[in-house]
């Protein structure tokens, strides 16, 4: 199994599409960092309008942190203090424009980039197995290792690990690219130890979802022996089918992929709450969907004629 895994990792890393993904990620991070650095600057404290708005907001945050907003503990994501929650979610940002970059805004940046990266990683995962079927290399591999479940298992593990590591690596790269803007043209003062811990857990959960989503995409592509089947099917489901079902059957919300993914990653802040479902349970639902799809892919692959 170790040899198979080694071969699969080598293959994934040597693929042109993987290198393109890496190049685009680096380019995107550098561009974003440069643009932000150029466009951001520290606020002049003498600007009365901003100062007043900031002071007013700080007052609101302090009131919220004293419990005056009546926020229930169950609404606060794990590893997040009440004050952090108030600052990031409950209390609105000052209406006066703030051209400085606060490092604490990184979480908001990551929410957006997580979605993009997950979609890209799902497409990559589908192409890993779709290309094998298309090129016919699966036949060659099976004449060396006829234990099909091992072969597919190694590919699935390699794909999931790649997605997990790739998401974290790209997000770290983005953080690194945006850091100079926070240091020189903004502030890092609100990014304390608790904030870093919360951010790390947030991204680890996102990476877990990226790994599960890639596994799901890979499994569907393996069943259909085609990358487009998985990419089209999953995107079609998320963009068309689930919204339609959501509007027709709102009571099914606890079983929708989107809601469970959002609940798991964000630790269910107000906007994404699913009544009666914890963060771990939401993750469990996604894991169960993935496991079911993997089981079907394994069963099909075990019995399939490789022609």
């Amino acid at each position, binding site marked *: 199994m170790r*040899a*198979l895994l*080694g*071969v699969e990792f*080598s*293959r994934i890393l*040597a*693929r*042109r599409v993987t290198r393109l993904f890496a190049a685009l990620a680096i380019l995107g991070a550098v561009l974003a960092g440069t643009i932000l650095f150029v466009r951001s600057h520290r606020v002049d404290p003498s600007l009365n309008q901003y100062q007043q708005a900031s002071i007013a907001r700080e007052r609101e945050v302090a009131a919220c942190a004293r419990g005056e907003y009546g926020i229930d503990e169950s609404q606060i994501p794990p590893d997040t203090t009440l004050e952090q929650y108030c600052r990031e979610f409950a209390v609105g940002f000052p209406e006066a424009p703030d051209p400085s970059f606060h490092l604490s805004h990184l979480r908001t940046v990551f929410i957006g980039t997580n979605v993009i990266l997950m979609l890209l990683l799902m497409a990559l995962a589908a192409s890993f197995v779709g290309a094998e079927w298309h*090129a*016919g*290399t699966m*036949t*060659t591999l*099976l*004449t*060396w*290792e*006829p*234990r099909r479940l091992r072969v597919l298992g190694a590919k699935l593990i390699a794909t999931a690990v790649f997605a997990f590591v790739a998401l974290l690596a790209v997000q770290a790269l983005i953080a690194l690219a945006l850091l100079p803007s926070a240091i020189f043209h903004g502030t890092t003062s609100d990014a304390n130890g608790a904030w870093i811990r919360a951010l790390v857990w947030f991204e680890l959960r996102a990476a877990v979802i990226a790994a599960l989503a890639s596994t799901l995409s890979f499994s569907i592509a393996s069943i259909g022996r085609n990358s487009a089947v998985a990419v089209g099917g999953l995107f079609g489901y998320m963009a068309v089918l689930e919204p339609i079902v959501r509007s027709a059957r709102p009571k099914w919300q606890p079983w929708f992929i989107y809601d469970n993914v959002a609940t798991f990653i964000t630790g269910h802040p107000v906007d994404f709450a699913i009544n009666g479902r914890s963060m771990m349970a939401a993750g469990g639902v996604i894991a169960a969907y993935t496991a079911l799809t993997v089981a079907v892919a394994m069963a099909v692959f075990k*019995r399939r*004629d*490789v*022609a």
Partner: protein
Amino acid sequence: MQVIEAEGLRKEYRRLRGGRTLALAGLDLSVPEGGVFGFLGPNGAGKTTTIRALLGLVRPTAGRCRLLGVDTPGALPTVIQRVGSIVETPTLYPRFSGRRNLELLGRLAGIGRRRVSEILEQVGLSGRADESVKTYSLGMKQRLGIGAALLKDPELLILDEPANGLDPAGIKEVRDLVRRLGGEGRTVFVSSHQLSEVQQMCDRVAILSRGRSVASGPVAEVLARGGHAGVVVRLADLQAGMSVLREAGLQTDLDTDHLTVIIPPSEAARISEVLAARGLFVSELRAQEVSLETVFLELTQNRPDEVKP
């Protein structure tokens, strides 16, 4: 010991729009250990399906097959390290170099880089081993595929049309290689439609038609099944000779510059006796050469439809 056995092997493929295609119709096959075994058949006869079934790539609808004494696909993992194979056109990762491809395959079987270099040398690719496979010609890819099959130093080599895409020099190289490998005590199972090649390199053959074996055995035995084996006779007056031989009850055909008498070569003396008795003397008397192609065509054409899907 039989290294390959198939008993009543049957494979039906379901068509997308209903119905079934019968690829193998109860194939019986037995390949003894050692030497080169040719597996012949016209397109669609079921050669590649047989090989795929032996290697566990397709699941037979009925029947059983054994490789190196074990049932496949169930026990195939226990013997796969002793089997090297090419199935149709060998497909390797096009963006990797030839060397990298072999190294990756080798890792699956614990084979080191030195062996990879040896094989690349053996198949004549060491000069371009570090270039990506997508730049290789079809012949080079075929040679790399043969290299991959040889990497495990296998007891049994299963080669599906190994000379596909090769130029005459390449075909000769493959033929020499296969003969050498067969001479080393390995068993080489070669499917091919290049009959002259098979005749030159194989010790035994099986001929497949419509999913069944219609002839099998040592090449000489299979050739002897050619129904038109006879004796070639040359003499000055072909017309007179034909009349005399026909009068004597011998089936004789007139060709451009010789007569063909349908009689076992061992009875050729009777021809000279009959002709000499009538004052006709032969200038040449020899057994007609029967090619595998003749036998192949005879056995695979004009056969009633035995197979009904």
